[in-house]
C-alpha cells in the first residue's frame, strides 16, 4: 500500500484531535501489517469506494473512547451510550471529511460510507490482499490507531 494514502488521514487526525482535545498530541511509529490484526475495544469504520478502495479504522480502547467522548462533551461519560457513540462517530466523520479533501486534491476520487462503530472484546480485522498501514496517535486520553487499508482499483 502506498504511504501517500495514509498521510492525509494522519494530518487530518492531528488537526482535528488538536482542535477538540488540545495540543498534547504525539505521533507514534508507522507500521505495516499484512495479516490479521487485533482491534481494541472501540473502532470507528469508514469504507472508501472509487478509483481507490478500502477502509479506514479509528481504533481505541474503551477507556480511551470514554475519555475522548467525555472531553468532547464537557461531561464525564461512564459508559459508551448513544451520545458517546455519536461523539466518536462525529470524530471519525470530521477526520475523514478533512482527509478526503486532501486526497481529492491529489487526484483520488472516491465516495465514503457513513462511519459505523464496532465495540467488543477480542476483535480482529483481516484485509485480504491489501496491507494495512497503521499510525498510532497518542493523546492525553490514550492511544488512537489510524489504520488504513486502501488500494487502487484495477
Amino acid at each position: 500500500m502506498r504511504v501517500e494514502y495514509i498521510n492525509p488521514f494522519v494530518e487530518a487526525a492531528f488537526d482535528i484531535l488538536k482542535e477538540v482535545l488540545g495540543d498534547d498530541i504525539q505521533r507514534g511509529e508507522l507500521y505495516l501489517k499484512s495479516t490479521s490484526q487485533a482491534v481494541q475495544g472501540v473502532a470507528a469504520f469508514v469504507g472508501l469506494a472509487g478509483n481507490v478502495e478500502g477502509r479506514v479504522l479509528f481504533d481505541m480502547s474503551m477507556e480511551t473512547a470514554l475519555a475522548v467522548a467525555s472531553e468532547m462533551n464537557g461531561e464525564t461519560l461512564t459508559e459508551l451510550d448513544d451520545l458517546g457513540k455519536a461523539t466518536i462517530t462525529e470524530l471519525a466523520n470530521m477526520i475523514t471529511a478533512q482527509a478526503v479533501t486532501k486526497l481529492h486534491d491529489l487526484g483520488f476520487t472516491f465516495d465514503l460510507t457513513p462511519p459505523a462503530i464496532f465495540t467488543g472484546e477480542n476483535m480482529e480485522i483481516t484485509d485480504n490482499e491489501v496491507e494495512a498501514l497503521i499510525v498510532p496517535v497518542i493523546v492525553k486520553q490514550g492511544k488512537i490507531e489510524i489504520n488504513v487499508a486502501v488500494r487502487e482499483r484495477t
Partner: protein
Amino acid sequence: MKTKMDFPSINERKPDGQGDGGTPYKVLVVDDSMFVKKQISQILTSEGFEVVGTAGDGLEGLEKYKELYPDVDFVTMDITMPKMDGISSLEKIIEFDKDAKVIMVSALGKQDLVKKALMMGAKNYIVKPLDRVKVLERVLQSIK
C-alpha cells in the same frame, strides 16, 4: 445597608442570544448526530438563545419549521443527513418562507455544497469542529 440595587451594573451585559427587550432568539437545530445537536444547543443556550425545536433529518427539519413558523428566528442545518439532505431541506424551507434564516453546518470538504447552499439563500455556514466563538459570531452575523 447598600443592596446590590445601589450599584451600577457595569459587568452585566445582555446575552447576545436575546433581542431588544430581552426576548431570546428562537432556533431550530437540524442535525442527524445527537452529539452535534447537543453541542450546538449548549453553545446557543449558554448565550441566551432558545432552542425551540430539533430535528434528525432534513424532512423532519422542514416539517418542524412549518410547525413552528413564525415563532422561529433561524435554523442551523447539517448538510449530510438521511431521508432528506440539508440542501434540499434548505430549498424547501426557503420555498415556504423566503425570509428564512438558515445557517449551514458542515465538515470540511463540502465546499461545493456549502457554495450551492449560499447561492440558494443560506445566510451563512459553520465548519466543524464547532468552536463556541465561531458559532456565535456566524449566528449573530446572520440574524442581525
